[in-house]
């Protein structure tokens, strides 16, 4: 009972600190929105209007059709017909993202049902663009070949239509894919920073000595400091998701309960990580550095936000197992895009819970009640 009173007093005091100096509120609520807008508008992995040049060595009806087919979508624009020896120059000067070389006998080979070859030269200096261009051209080439072949074989002309279908994000829009990642990323930074500063601040202004001379316990301090920032963090989650849905048409197909559980657990873990840093460093400068590095890098690089975890080297894949942002990003995508609920996402919730508990235990255990 008295313990609850003390936790309540600590939480209320913390709220007063925040309200007296609302800069931390601006940080907590403003930064996520600004970053979401920056990332959402600025970062796009979508292929859009990339110039494609053609070297047509076949000069046939089919080759002309192929060229027309490639450039009819929004991804590529026709960069024109060029000679074979110009290809290199086009790529070097950046006037073409890729050059498609249609070999001699392309049409003839197709007609006979033999292998017909396309050579695709891609500017690999933009890795993401190159990967996507390759995938796209490969797919289009295959469809074209398939259609051409069936047209020859079946006289009825009822060609089989090949269509790819991207589930859950039909237009393959980057923003929709990015919002869950950004949410996890900015929340991680903000949450860790918020608490990293608060305990260090008590050390720096000398109030820790006064606090330690009272019957207040370490766990009480930890919980009392977590509660108010939990509220601030929850507001930040709602704000970011709200902006994501409103500005970027982010869908919300899954269970709100799952979203709430995952968010609260993720926040608790991140706030706990901040507390742990604060307890260890006792210094706001060092705490800020440690908080930024330890939250930003893993949640950006190892969460699957930008780089798919399956594509990482095996060692890094193992490391991601202890990155909480990974489970949150996965969970958010599950809830928002795939329409998942806790039935599918309970392992993620469990992982986040484990991390949160670990951080609280560590912070309390490393919390020294001594000033020297």
């Amino acid at each position, binding site marked *: 009972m008295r313990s609850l009173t003390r936790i309540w007093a600590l939480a209320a005091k913390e709220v007063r600190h925040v309200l007296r100096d609302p800069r931390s509120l601006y940080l907590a609520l403003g930064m996520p929105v600004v970053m979401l807008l920056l990332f959402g508008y600025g970062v796009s992995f979508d292929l859009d209007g990339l110039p494609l040049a053609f070297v047509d060595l076949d000069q046939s009806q089919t080759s002309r059709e192929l060229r027309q087919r490639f450039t009819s979508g929004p991804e590529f624009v026709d960069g024109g017909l060029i000679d074979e020896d110009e290809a290199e120059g086009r790529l070097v000067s950046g006037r073409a993202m890729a050059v498609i070389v249609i070999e001699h006998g392309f049409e003839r080979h197709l007609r006979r049902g033999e292998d017909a070859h396309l050579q695709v030269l891609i500017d690999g200096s933009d890795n993401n663009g190159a990967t996507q261009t390759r995938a796209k051209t490969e797919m289009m080439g295959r469809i074209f070949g398939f259609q051409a072949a069936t047209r020859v074989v079946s006289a009825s002309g009822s060609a089989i239509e090949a269509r790819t279908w991207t589930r859950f994000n039909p237009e393959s829009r980057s923003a929709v894919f990015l919002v869950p990642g950004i949410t996890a990323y900015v929340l991680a930074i903000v949450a860790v920073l918020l608490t990293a500063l608060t305990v260090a601040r008590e050390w720096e202004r*000398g109030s820790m000595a006064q606090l330690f001379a009272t019957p207040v316990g370490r766990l009480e301090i930890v919980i009392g400091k977590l509660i108010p920032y939990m509220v601030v963090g929850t507001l930040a989650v709602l704000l970011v998701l709200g902006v994501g849905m409103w500005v970027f048409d982010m869908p919300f197909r899954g269970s709100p309960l799952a979203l709430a559980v995952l968010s609260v657990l993720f926040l608790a873990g991140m706030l706990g990580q901040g507390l742990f840093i604060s307890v260890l460093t006792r210094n706001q400068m060092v705490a800020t550095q440690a908080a930024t590095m330890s939250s930003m890098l893993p949640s950006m690089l190892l969460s699957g936000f930008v780089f798919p975890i399956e594509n990482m080297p095996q060692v890094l894949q193992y490391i991601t197992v202890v990155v909480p942002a990974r489970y949150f990003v996965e969970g958010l995508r599950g809830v928002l895009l795939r329409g998942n609920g806790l039935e599918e996402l309970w392992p993620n919730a469990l992982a986040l819970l484990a991390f949160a508990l670990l951080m609280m235990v560590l912070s309390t255990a490393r919390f020294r009640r001594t000033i020297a």
Partner: protein
Amino acid sequence: MSAVVIEDLHRDYAEVHAVRGVSLAIEPGELYGLVGPDGAGKSTTIGCLAGLMHPTSGSVRILGEDPMGRRSTAREHLGLMPQEYSLYGDLTIAENLWFFGQLFGLKKKVFMERRERLLGITRLGRFEDRRADALSGGMYKKLALSCALLHQPQVLLLDEPTNGVDPVSRRELWALIYEFVADGMAVLLSTPYMDEASRCHRVGLMHEGHIIAEGAPGDLTDGLEHEVAEVIGGDRATLHGFLEGRDELVAASPAGERLRVIIKPGGSATLDAALAPLGASLRRVPPDFEDLFLARVAA
């Protein structure tokens, strides 16, 4: 039972031996002054008593309990006013009081009564909505003392409470302390000001980690075997040079127009005789705490 007991306390920081074997006991209703210059080990002693540092060796007991003990209730009965600013500067007087009242689990009615009483004595009532970092040094110290007194601790530790406080506020602080001592509180207070020693019931003179003299202030100065005198007459500059090399002297310091000298036991006759040719003579004065400290440190 003594309220505070320290036995052979030692505390080292890396290379520095801050406290080297301090023992003392304080009874309920007693005001004990730990008097000594900066770096004597006063704050370290208080830190160990408040359970903020582990002793290197020796023991401290608050009401018979180890303040560091896991199940210790010592902190419930302990009030601490640290030397540094340690309240929340961005909270008001009222909010700081409320916070510490809650930490000690005071019931609302009790809290309000004590709050009114403390705000009344300290005359801080008019400023209760002022932020702590906007208070003058004296007002801040009065608030810090009030926060430490809210739960009416049986043991109160005050680390240099009057440091940087104007004389008027200083008197108010002392008045507040006396009021609670009269109710049976045991108070340990540290101060670098020798003149404040006489305000305590009992004093421990602290120097380089040791208590070099302990007792009631009057007894300590009365018991000084050294003689203290003022040098009357003679030329100031000449006297300075002359006194410099005298073995009888412990210390000489200007006191207004005159020189104040502390003379080793039995040295006053020879010194007086030696001063006569210079047209100067000694006039005995009662020793004060500074004399006592200088005499003890020299010994």
